[in-house]
């Protein structure tokens, strides 16, 4: 089924081809059947807000297609992007389990397909389906590890340059380019968004990129960034 946002919507989890590759979705038959009965398949355009930090939890959002920006906001309006969620991730999980307000804001950065499950239905599902409960524990563990990594990166990096170098190396390793001499990565975020990921200003990110290009450490080709001198980038990342 084609949606208005050009998405090829997967109506049923039972027929989803990506299911086996995804931590939460790869449930045994009975649990998957039960999940199918409580989820609502929805599609969102780019820029849609799924939930807002501080809002009472309505339920969970299983990201089927597209990417979602997860951010936290300070009282002065400063935004920090905690993570870019990828397909297969369950959003709003800890808030829905604990009943505490959502601790992040989730905004789509691509057209997305999302399976929404109401909180009461989800909690009942977890109590009745031990396999699903275990999967949720695994997802929460991964999210916790990511949050700790974020604290380390923000709190223990000495400069914005170091944080940017670490981010670029991390992205290149995720794309399976890490082993290459000159890894390539698609820059899907704006300088403003990259600044929000490393807790600095847009101007600083633009200046840092200009400096990296001038020193021939990176080279931009459209939205593709080529890391020309990986050793130099690693040196910046290790604060040397």
């Amino acid at each position, binding site marked *: 089924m084609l949606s208005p946002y050009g998405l090829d919507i997967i109506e049923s989890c039972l027929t989803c081809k990506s299911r086996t590759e995804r931590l939460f979705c790869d449930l045994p038959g009975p649990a998957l059947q039960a999940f199918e009965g409580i989820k609502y398949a929805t599609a969102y355009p780019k820029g849609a807000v799924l939930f807002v930090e501080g809002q009472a939890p309505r339920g969970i959002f299983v990201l089927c297609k597209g990417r979602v920006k997860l951010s*936290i906001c*300070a009282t002065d309006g*400063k935004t*920090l992007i*905690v993570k870019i969620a990828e397909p297969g991730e369950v959003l709003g*999980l*800890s*808030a829905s*389990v*604990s009943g*505490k307000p959502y*601790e*992040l804001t989730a905004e789509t950065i691509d057209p997305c397909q999302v399976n929404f499950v109401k909180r009461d239905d989800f909690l009942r599902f*977890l*109590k009745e389906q*031990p396999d699903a*409960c*275990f999967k*949720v*524990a*695994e997802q*929460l*563990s*991964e*999210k*916790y*590890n990511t*949050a*700790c*990594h*974020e*604290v*380390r990166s*923000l*709190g*223990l*990096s*000495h400069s914005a340059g170091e944080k940017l170098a670490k981010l670029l190396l991390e992205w290149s390793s995720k794309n399976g380019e890490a082993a290459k001499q000159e890894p390539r990565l698609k820059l899907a975020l704006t300088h403003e968004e990259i600044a929000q990921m490393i*807790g600095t200003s847009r101007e600083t990110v633009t200046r840092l990129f200009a400096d990296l290009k001038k020193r021939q450490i990176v080279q931009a080709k459209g939205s593709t960034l080529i890391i020309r001198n990986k050793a130099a980038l690693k040196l910046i990342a*290790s*604060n040397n």
Partner: protein
Amino acid sequence: MESAIQQSCMESIERPDRLFCDLPTETLKAFDALKSTTECQRGTVLFREGSHCKGVLLLCEGRARLSVCSETSSRLTLRIAGPGEILGLSACLAGSAHEMTAELLDSTRVALVRRKDLMEFLHDHREACMKVVSLLSQDLHRAYDRVRSVGMGRGRRSRSTRVH
């Protein structure tokens, strides 16, 4: 760690006030059979960041400092864990290395459950699995609070007060 002793969770009077410990009797008996309790001295490092996760540690009494380290060895305290908390849970479930260092701030009793035993226990006892999900949700909320305080600090000076 010092001499191993056995103490039953069934005898604990604090049990009803602790999220994980307040399990149904049969489940608690099963957990009791898995754990080995050890007396540890203040300053004992329960596990180190990056080390292989062998199991979880239940803090029966006292406090533990959870911290992360940079390549240059500066340390940042994530939070202080208190009695009744399970340490090393996320690494154990994810099957990954410990993402932090846990160091005891008091001399205390610690119960150890091996990873393999914990996984089987959680598969067999859904109440315990739900408790673990609740604990991890709580941990995640605290971690995001820490991300907020560290990431939204006005500058290095405000953040450096928390670096040890």
